[in-house]
């Protein structure tokens, strides 16, 4: 495992750059724990100060230090992405493994449902969800609904791997030795699909973080939890661009763009490592 990681770092430029970027972002989000004041507090420093020695990245019109605000926002945004990815992996894995292992009618039914979730435009549904929840909307609830909606693409990928496992000899050996389908799936097949699960995790994080930013900027989430999206929301509320407080917008946008690129590079490198032929995963515009 460690050796694979080292080889990838040395011989795969995409992986190296991706690792570097993601480490920087993770490092920044860890720094949030050392913030001199809670990130939710406002008017703790002088407002609208441009980047300077005292405030490296400037301060917001709400009297927050952009740097510390951003570390907290990155942390919450990352956690959000991880939470959505973790929950939706459970669904993707279950559907993908069962569909790929069982085949036949089960597979057809599950994949029809799966494709349905790929086709349905999710944004209006998320907006509707916010619309009925309004003030009860929370960070955790959003993560939950996004996980419930955003598993289908990866379930399809996992299914295709599981399907190829089904025809391998060791699977029939397991069947002859009397293992139940559930045992085969969880003990024998799961380890094989884990690498692809890992790379889909990264792509799924990109998707959910992008969606979170979008929803927050429009004010369709709990905007009092600092995330990259809510940071931009407040900047827009204070018309930061018109007022010339560009640093309030520029830094979080740059940070989150770097995060997208970093995660994407990691996922691409991993995909290539797992299967040089499957560079086409996540094709199209599934952002």
């Amino acid at each position, binding site marked *: 495992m460690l050796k694979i990681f080292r080889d990838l770092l040395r011989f795969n430029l995409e992986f190296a750059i991706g690792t570097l970027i993601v480490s920087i972002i993770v490092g920044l989000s860890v720094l949030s724990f050392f913030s001199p004041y809670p990130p939710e507090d406002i008017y703790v420093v002088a407002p609208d100060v441009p980047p300077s020695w005292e405030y490296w990245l400037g301060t917001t019109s709400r009297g927050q230090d952009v740097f510390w605000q951003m570390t907290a926002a990155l942390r919450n945004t990352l956690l959000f992405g991880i939470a959505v990815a973790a929950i939706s992996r459970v669904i993707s894995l279950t559907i993908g493994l069962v569909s790929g292992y069982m085949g036949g009618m089960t597979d*057809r039914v599950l994949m*029809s*449902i799966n*494709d*349905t*979730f*790929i*086709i*349905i*435009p*999710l*944004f*209006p*549904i998320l*907006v*509707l*969800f*916010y*619309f*009925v*929840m*309004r003030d*009860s909307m929370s960070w955790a609830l959003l993560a939950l609904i996004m996980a419930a909606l955003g598993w289908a693409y990866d379930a399809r990928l996992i299914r295709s791997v599981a399907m190829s496992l089904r025809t391998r000899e060791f699977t029939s050996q397991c069947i002859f030795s009397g293992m139940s389908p559930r045992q085969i799936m969880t003990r024998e097949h799961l380890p094989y699909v884990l690498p692809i699960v890992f790379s889909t995790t990264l792509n799924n994080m*990109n*998707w959910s*973080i*992008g*969606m979170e*930013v*979008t929803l927050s*900027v*429009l004010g*369709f989430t709990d905007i009092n939890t600092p995330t990259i999206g809510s940071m*931009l929301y407040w900047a827009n509320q204070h018309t930061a*661009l018109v007022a010339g407080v560009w640093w309030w*917008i520029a830094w979080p*946008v740059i940070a*989150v*763009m770097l995060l*997208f*690129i970093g*995660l*994407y*590079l990691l996922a*691409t490198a991993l995909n290539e490592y797992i299967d040089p*032929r499957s*560079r*086409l995963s996540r*094709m*199209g*515009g*599934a*952002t």
Partner: protein
Amino acid sequence: MKTYAIYLAKRLLQFVLVVFIGINLTYVISHATPIDPVEQTISALTSFGNTSPEAIETMRESLRELYGMSGTPLEQYVSFWSRIVVGDFGPSLSAFPTPVSELILRALPWTIGLLVVATVLAWLLGNLLGGLAGYYRKNRLLKAMGLIAMGLHPMPYYVVAFVLLVVFGFLWPVLPISGGSGIGVGRGFSFDFISSVLLHSLLPALSLVVVGLGGWFLGMRALVSNIVTEDYVVYAELGGVDRRRILTSYVMRNALVPQVTGLAMSLGAIFTGAIITEEVFGYPGIGSLLVDAVHAGDYSLVLGITSVSIVAVSLAVLVIDLLYPLLDPRVQVE
């Protein structure tokens, strides 16, 4: 012929399934959540002043009626579906008494126009360039494009649209950044109006194309670099078949088949992107309508837009599916 009929039946079934699950999802979200949209609306409407309890009670009654929330759950469910089947979502609250369907019909052409042009452009261009990049792996220019595509592809629509807005709205203000056409330009079939519409659609379309292009480019490049190792391409090359013929009829042509499937599969995501982009540029389509409806607390409108979006996207997917056999003679009969 028979296989096509089976294929047709399957695709139609999938279409019905998407609409069924999608609409049920909206039903569950709007009816089965602990939050009552009627109460939501009332609190939104009454938050600005004192309203007598009797007035609130009448309001509650009529809202229940309006939102299809009176009667037993079964009645509610049936009335929910019947509204969708006839396309009648009642009057809009924020633009009372204009029917929701009329508002949607007014906005839909903008969205469809923007979406179709941008998607077709991104798809064609991305596949052409990506295919070339996969075939001519050593070309510097195409390699550079690949790097740009890798940077752009992971960006969500909102971020790209926002960055373009900042660049062309604040740093280098040369393009209109808001609205669907110039203020004061009379509607109709005039040069002024059409050029104004085109000019206003430039930035929204550009952001959609920029995001989509990267994805199609990378997808096609990967597909092509796999297809060139397929036996039939290797064999054609060994047989000295004309290089251009190999590129067009063996490599690109065959790679387009999965890209069409990919297009059908990502229409939902592209649609999401379009309505987000519209909101950023204040483009008068479904997206702006949706966001305004949320801010105005217009439940019928939000519900109407959600339902119409689901049906519209599944219809578009169905159309692509039905045309697919023209591209691939091996219609799947599993």
